[in-house]
């Protein structure tokens, strides 16, 4: 019984665990709704120093500055899109961890779908061809005659 409980506790804590947060309590906004918006925005913005972390996860100085800046914009009354645009205007679209859909990124966004389509087409062509090969060819006239003769003879 104790063991089961301990096991359940371990699982519970493992599920609750999240990456250690870089956001410091002093950075957080008092208004929980604004803070939640700021967190959501920061998770989508790339830290330019470490590049594969969002500014929400990064401990870099610049990430801290950008987190504070996003919060300042929100407090100043910016919408989420305006706050993001403010950063993009300065650092370019590279800061967006999720690239926008536009002509320059069509290849990026469409390539998975194209790969699936080409792959499926390849599989279909292959299966069709294999089925055609598995079906036995019709007997030739000579074979037909031989078969008939064997049947009529009634056994070897």
């Amino acid at each position, binding site marked *: 019984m104790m063991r089961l409980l301990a096991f359940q506790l371990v699982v519970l804590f493992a599920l609750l665990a999240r990456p250690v947060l870089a956001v410091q309590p002093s950075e957080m906004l008092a208004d929980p709704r604004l803070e939640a918006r700021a967190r959501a925005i920061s998770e989508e913005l790339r830290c*330019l*120093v470490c*590049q594969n972390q969002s500014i929400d996860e990064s401990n870099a*100085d*610049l990430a801290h*500055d*950008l987190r504070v*800046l996003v919060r300042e914009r929100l407090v100043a009354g910016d919408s989420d899109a305006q706050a993001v645009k403010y950063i*993009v*205007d*300065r*650092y*370019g*679209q*590279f800061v967006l961890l999720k690239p926008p859909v536009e002509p320059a990124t069509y290849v990026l966004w469409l390539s998975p779908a194209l790969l699936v389509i080409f792959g499926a087409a390849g599989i279909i062509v292959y299966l069709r061809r294999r089925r055609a090969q598995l079906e036995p060819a019709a007997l030739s006239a000579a074979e037909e005659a031989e078969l008939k003769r064997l049947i009529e003879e009634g056994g070897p």
Partner: protein
Amino acid sequence: MRRRLIFILPALVFLGLVAAFYAGLDRDPQLVPSALIGKPVPQFALPALLDGNAGLKTADLKGKVVLVNVFASWCVPCRAEHPLLMRLAKEGLELDGINYKDKPEDAKLWLVNLGDPYKRIGSDLEGTVGIDWGVYGVPETFVVDRAGTIRFKQVGPLSPGVINDTIVPLVRQLSK
């Protein structure tokens, strides 16, 4: 014919990959394309680092081709780059500095020890102006044309190669 294609195709794909990787060898994945090339200098006004100077603001960067260098005394590559800045200043290029998130007393000592190549230096204590300039790794150097438009940005320390091959020709061309 078709059978031969099946054998050749993977080889071609492989060669394509080799070509792509080879081309990527010399490219720096840390380098971020600047959003500010071709755009006007951001609106800003910074207090002077040195007493008796006027600081640095947007209007100072108009009417002349200027290099704007973002530096800090805590930045090691800046130290490597400094002699090159001194050389550029000696050759008569106008250099302005943004002292990024630095302690003013450290920055002053830096200039006393290593020399001061800058005409004007603005002190960006909080790094907010740095963000307006899209700075993400000190040192950074911008070439600003007469109209106050950013034409070029170097992230990381300048090298003799970049100066001779890119910056000097660009400044010469813009100054015509």
